[in-house]
């Protein structure tokens, strides 16, 4: 059993084929990193897993996608998303809600917490796991625009965690933040894998080496190589993976 099983998945966006017969398996409770150059289909792949691809006008998905044992393409997308948290490339906390409410809203919607006390506990737990609690515990009623970019991204991680998801999708979560915040986010990600399976997209080889248990290399919509991180970093078998790891792509 795998947290995510993709078999021969192809995605067409407005007639253009973005994913070309992708097959990959994400074991439970691991950090699975997807690497690849810009435009290789990494974000699209994540959006297939939680069916956010449905929001893209004219998108068509072929092949089989199993997420946490459910057939993702025939399962109710709203029910599916209750099991999957997601952090996007650009920090996108809800600007009209306070730090507290940004996290609480996810817990309430998914029925994770109902009473005020339960919500308080989940908010604290999620902010602690996102390594943000110490920085915001006395300013929970501030708004996201009062936080730095890195703090905003960790708030998004806390929002995703407050759903108590079984799968966490991270779409280049450190691409727009400073190295200190990036490192904190990485620490948070690694510490999470006992409770949640993480699928992370990144184009930083060093970051992948620090956090990944498994790696898949995506190029032009195809998985050109995948396997345990150590094996792939030490002995990449394809030319594309070698170039990507050397930062030449």
């Amino acid at each position: 059993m795998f947290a995510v099983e993709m078999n021969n998945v192809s995605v067409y966006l407005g007639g253009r084929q973005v994913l070309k017969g992708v097959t990959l398996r994400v074991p439970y409770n691991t950090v699975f990193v997807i690497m690849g150059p810009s435009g290789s289909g990494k974000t699209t792949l994540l959006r297939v897993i939680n069916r956010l691809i449905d929001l893209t006008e004219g998108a068509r998905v072929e092949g089989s996608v199993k997420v946490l044992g459910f057939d993702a393409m025939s399962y109710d997308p709203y029910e599916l998303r209750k099991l999957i948290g997601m952090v996007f490339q650009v920090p996108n906390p809800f600007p009209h809600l306070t730090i507290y409410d940004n996290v609480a809203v996810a817990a309430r919607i998914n029925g994770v917490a109902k009473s005020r006390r339960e919500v308080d506990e989940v908010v604290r737990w999620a902010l602690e796991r996102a390594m943000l609690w110490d920085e915001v515990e006395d300013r929970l009623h501030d708004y996201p625009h009062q936080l730095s970019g890195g703090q905003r991204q960790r708030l998004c991680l806390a929002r995703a965690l407050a759903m108590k998801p079984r799968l966490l999708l991270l779409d280049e979560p450190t691409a727009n933040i400073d190295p200190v915040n990036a490192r904190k986010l990485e620490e948070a990600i690694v510490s999470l894998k006992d409770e949640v399976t993480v699928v992370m997209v990144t184009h930083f080889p060093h970051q992948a080496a620090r956090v990944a248990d498994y790696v898949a290399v995506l190029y032009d919509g195809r998985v050109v190589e995948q396997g345990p991180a150590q094996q792939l970093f030490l002995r990449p078998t394809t030319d594309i993976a070698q170039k990507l790891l050397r930062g030449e792509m």
Partner: protein
Amino acid sequence: MYSWRMLREKLFTCLIAVLSLLAIVPIVHLIIAVLINGFTVIAKAGINFFTNLPPAPLSREIGGIAPSIIGTALMTIISLPITVVLALFAAILTTEFPRNTVSIIIDAVAKSLASIPTIAVSMIVFTLIVMPMKGFSALAGAIALSIIALPYAYTYFSTALRSIPAMYREAAFSIAMGRWGAVMKVLIPIARRSIAVGVLMTIARIMGETAALLFTAGRFRTGVSFSPTSPADAIPLLIFDYILSPYETWHQVAWGAAALLLLAYIVLFFATKLIVKEVKL
């Protein structure tokens, strides 16, 4: 010494400043003229301006515009919720489902509705509402006003919703919010300032419209009526009639009424700015 590039930049800045000033001066002049002339009249009439009936044509007393104030308030109260609710739902539908056939039809109808002359709307409402009801009424006036204001409100609301970056919609869906939840809990609250401005502009459109009321409201100025089914007057109608009349007293009343209308807009504008805080993205 200035280089040619710096000189050109200075000249361009000056040109923009002069052109902006040229655009602002007539508006400021208009506002000041209406406020000075109008408030001179209101000060002379005192509280009676708000409570009395309009003066007889050759009267020396200024009297008041109570029927017009009540009529405008009544028609705004009836028309505003209808307009705002319909326009907001239409904007949500066309923003969330832009390729849906119903959305395409609504968008096309809203755009074409804006280009229909307001006097024609007045005549249509006269045929469909006034004639079957056998009389002018505040209700007929309010319906005509709603038809006029609907495309404007729709345009404001749909622009406000479309201007929200897609990442917030995606964030809402990613935490398992449904489409309705995303609209009500995320998109509308983020766009609240723009929507509030849209509501304000709709009020301004409703309160300031004249032609739509010519064949619908009834110009009832000999008493004060609070009934939606009775004839009513409106401030713009009174201004239109009185400013065209040959009587000096009526001209003064028209100035006072115009100042009152303008003051209402200014108060609403600043109240909206104060009450509805902008969401910082």
